[in-house]
């Protein structure tokens, strides 16, 4: 199995207030930056968000039924 291309991996961030989001890098960065500024008046750069994110392991692939 190969790692997903950079930017396509699934990552997750959480806020101290309990809010969390998971998805691809761009969507997580966008959602986290929006939450930080809109709810906490806290500007956050892409680099700061990625620094605090964790990589979400890909779910193991189930062999398809009837696979040879």
């Amino acid at each position, binding site marked *: 199995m190969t790692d997903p291309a950079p930017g396509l991996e699934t*990552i997750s961030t*959480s806020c101290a207030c309990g809010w969390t989001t998971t998805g691809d890098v761009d969507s997580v960065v966008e959602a986290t930056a929006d939450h930080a500024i809109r709810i*906490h008046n806290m500007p956050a750069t892409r680099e700061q968000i990625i620094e605090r994110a964790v990589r979400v392991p890909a779910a193991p692939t189930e062999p398809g039924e009837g696979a040879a």
Partner: protein
Amino acid sequence: MSDLPIPVDVEGPVQAEVFVVWLHDGRIELTGACGSAPWMLEIGATEHPVDVVSRIVRDALGEPIVVHSTSWRRDRDAVILSFVVVIDAALVGTMASAPVGRSDLARSEATAAPREIEHGQVVEHGLRHLAWLVHDDPVVAAELPAVWATVLAGYVPEPFRALG
């Protein structure tokens, strides 16, 4: 990227801690963007704290009835300004909410801050402050629906006081 989650958290030398209160069947409850937990805001170097709290609450929840700073203390490597924000029940929607319990105040020494201050004590002080304002501040008295004066009667009025 870290191996362990590092929560995004409010930083900076001045932070606001917002307690959003509303009346649920005549009982004061805490709610807000972070549910009943304290709602932390970062205050920029050139920003006025009251403006920030009013704007963020307005944008996230809707128009507040009253926004008032009620105490401050030293915590989280910052000066924390506590605010009580009163909202109408119509703004609560699906936000988590919890009844406010009563707490003893965190008492200062004659020339020193209290050693520990719990959130419940900050809320208690804020509501006592609001109870005082209802009787002393004509703007607050005019803006708050009359039922608030009745509900707040159980809180001992106490003027603005630094907690830490």
